[in-house]
């Protein structure tokens, strides 16, 4: 009996072990496949985009996270600048002293972080100009032009600095990092003129330092030590750099004053002691100006520029896109009015973000990055722009309560002169369209 039970258990175990299913085989169609097949359609909806508009004024240039300095003769000229805060004129020589002594400025350094530059250009130079300390958000290209066309205070050749031997010893690198709050530079290059270049190994940004003497950067007590600096860029071709601004966090322009003061010895006959030290001068304001200025809005869809413009596009989803189909790809088709002029390296990203609710220009945007679609706009290219918004259209297809509208904006906004204009739905021949590839619902239940 025990043996019989063992056999029985073995059989049961055998059947249980065999309970692994594999019923899928390569199909031999159509003879040995289901009667229906997965059918796919590709349709361009030419009139699906409706009631589209552009609005300007979302981000001004002085609130942007970067500043563009570019110079393309006959096309555009963009110049960055910043002003510093006041600087102390006297210091207490010892802790607890109530008396102060005057400082004497010896030299200064001005720092810029190049977050973006053309890699194929040669002889890329930054020219530093002294600007009136009154420069602010009301300053225009024209009002600052006299200062920018004067003799530059200093000039720095980025390519020449990059070509210099790198100083990579850990001590020096860490010293500069700690002095200037730069993170993770991997090497330093120093020119004979005292210009310094650091390379951030995390994001390949370049940090450049101008070294200025007291003639180049005088300390003027009447101005409370404030200074204003402007930057123009030059190169053999494609002269353009994007500089970090204060809004970007640690990539903003900086100025550091190196000075000394004397501690008078009032007790003994020993000589007075001299203290050498330095101090950051806070950045009060940074901005960039350019010409030609951004043209006013028209009947087309403007995206980018300064202050930034966004386009709101509303989509009239046909009923059958809501059910009976499964969207596998959706592409927004936009026809540019003209190519964006400028330097190729200033190509920018356009992001399509859904609105949570349609309130026109002030529609709140969705915070879900999964639904966004984006593409890059290439400078000088008049080609039709395609933006993949598959996830967004799939979401609309599944959720009929969602607002079927989205906003096109530049990323990051207001950081450069670049603006693209697309034909709107008011231009019937070139209006925006939506190309949808979808799978028709499979007909289950039939043989």
């Amino acid at each position, binding site marked *: 009996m025990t043996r019989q039970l063992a056999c029985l258990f073995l059989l049961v175990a055998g059947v249980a072990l065999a309970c692994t299913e594999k019923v*899928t085989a390569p199909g031999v*169609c*159509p003879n040995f496949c289901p009667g229906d097949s997965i059918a796919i359609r590709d349709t361009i909806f030419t009139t699906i985009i409706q009631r589209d508009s552009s609005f300007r004024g979302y981000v001004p240039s002085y609130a942007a996270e970067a500043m563009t300095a570019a110079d393309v003769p006959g096309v555009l000229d963009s110049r960055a600048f910043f002003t510093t805060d006041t600087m102390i004129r006297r210091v207490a020589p010892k802790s607890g002293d109530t008396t102060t002594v005057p400082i004497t400025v010896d030299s200064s350094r001005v720092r810029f972080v190049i977050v973006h530059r053309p890699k194929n250009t040669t002889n890329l130079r930054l020219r530093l100009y002294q600007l009136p300390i009154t420069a602010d958000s009301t300053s225009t290209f024209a009002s600052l032009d006299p200062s920018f066309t004067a003799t530059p205070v200093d000039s720095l050749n980025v390519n020449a600095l990059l070509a210099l031997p790198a100083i990579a010893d850990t001590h020096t690198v860490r010293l500069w990092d700690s002095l200037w709050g730069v993170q993770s530079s991997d090497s330093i290059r120093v020119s004979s003129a005292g210009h310094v270049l650091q390379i951030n190994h995390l994001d390949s940004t370049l940090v450049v330092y101008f070294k200025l003497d007291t003639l180049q950067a005088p300390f003027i007590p009447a101005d409370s030590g404030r200074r204003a600096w402007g930057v123009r860029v030059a190169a053999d071709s494609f002269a353009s750099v994007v500089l970090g601004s204060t809004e970007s966090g640690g990539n903003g322009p900086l100025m550091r004053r190196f000075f000394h003061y004397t501690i008078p010895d009032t007790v003994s006959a020993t000589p007075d002691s001299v203290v050498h030290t330095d101090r950051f001068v806070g950045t009060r304001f940074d901005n960039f100006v350019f010409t030609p200025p951004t043209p006013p809005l028209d009947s087309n869809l403007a995206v980018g520029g300064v202050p930034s413009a966004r386009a709101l596009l509303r989509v009239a989803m046909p009923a059958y896109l809501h059910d009976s189909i*499964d969207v*596998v790809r959706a592409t927004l088709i936009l026809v540019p009015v003209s190519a964006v002029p400028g330097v190729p390296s200033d190509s920018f990203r356009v992001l399509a973000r859904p609105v949570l609710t349609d309130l026109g220009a002030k529609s709140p945007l969705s915070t879900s990055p999964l639904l966004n679609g984006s593409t890059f706009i290439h400078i000088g290219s008049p080609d039709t722009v395609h933006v993949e918004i598959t996830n967004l259209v799939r979401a609309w297809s599944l959720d009929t309560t969602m607002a079927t509208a989205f906003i096109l904006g530049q990323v990051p906004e207001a950081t450069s002169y670049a603006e693209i204009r697309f034909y709107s739905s008011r231009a019937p021949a070139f209006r925006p369209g939506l190309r949808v590839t979808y*799978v028709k619902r*499979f*007909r289950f*239940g039939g043989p």
Partner: protein
Amino acid sequence: MTVGRSDGRTAVVIAVLTLLPAVWPSGRLAAQDSQFGIRGLGTPGKWESVRARTTGGAFAPFDAFSPLTDAVLADVRRMSASVTSGASWRTVDAGGAQSSLRATRFPAMVITGPLTSRIVVGGGFTTYLDRSFGVIVHDTINLRGVPQPITDEITSDGAVSDLRIAVAARVHSRLAVGLGLHRMTGSSRVIAKRSFADTANYRTSTARDEVAYGGTGGSASLLFDVTSDIRVAGWFRTDSKLHADVGGRRVAENALPRTFGAGVQWRAGAQATLAGNVMWRNWGAVQSIANAHDTFNWSLGAEIGSPSSPFRFGLRGGQMPFGVGKTPTEVGYSAGLGRQFSGGRGRLDIGLERLQRSGSGLNERVWTVLLGLTVRP
């Protein structure tokens, strides 16, 4: 004491095996899958217990635990139950491309018992049509002017089950008749998925649904003992249309075939029994399917040895209802053993079956290990 302990263990095993099909997912309550059923209503199930199946199906009309006929229930003298299970390994050869598949099924269960000395009632389920399959198709289509490699996967997991309530009566010492009412029910979970090689631009499309099937039928059969050793059987069955509903909406209605069959069994002494039968079904009546064929099936089998531990073998042949071009054919060989235990209160049947199916452009070879348990509490 030893006998008593063994009986206790046996009872536990019986209980486990009896409960197993009850708790098993419904998709497994199916019979034998086949690629020939994909383009039709499905693959017809085999209404046979393990005992009958190991005789090539020849003993089915004479076996009370095969849900083929109702009249044979009149032979049951005690409350009894039987369950059939099988694990299959299938090789599909389509134009030289081979694939190996496997599945485990519980294709039949019968519970029956006498109501009076002359009337026996019974019931259970079996697979009417198996709807479990999966096909993968790799192709390249032109999308937006670019050749795009795609993969389509269409799977169906389920079956049309046949729930039966039958009554059999011995109207004469030599004649038993039976009637059965059938309710076809079941569902299949279906998935159609298309995926693209270009996953950066194209999302996978997946459609899922559940198809519910329904229908009714009736059967009648008789069993006549020509002599004490020779017995003949005849049966007939007709069904309503089989309807398929998706989400409560009727998507298809298909006619089902009438079934006619006859069989003969010869008891050649105390330790040998031979049987054979033929069955015809007019699947061609399924108008909605262009390549449906009427089928004729036959089987021969024998059971040799002591009734408590017989050896069985059989041969079957015939046609399958769905296939492009000529009617697909099926040939099968089977053999198995039976063993009674607990003083005849239980019986364990095991078997091995080999099937070969061939049609235009496709051949299938199937090995099936069968396990059946019958208990008479």
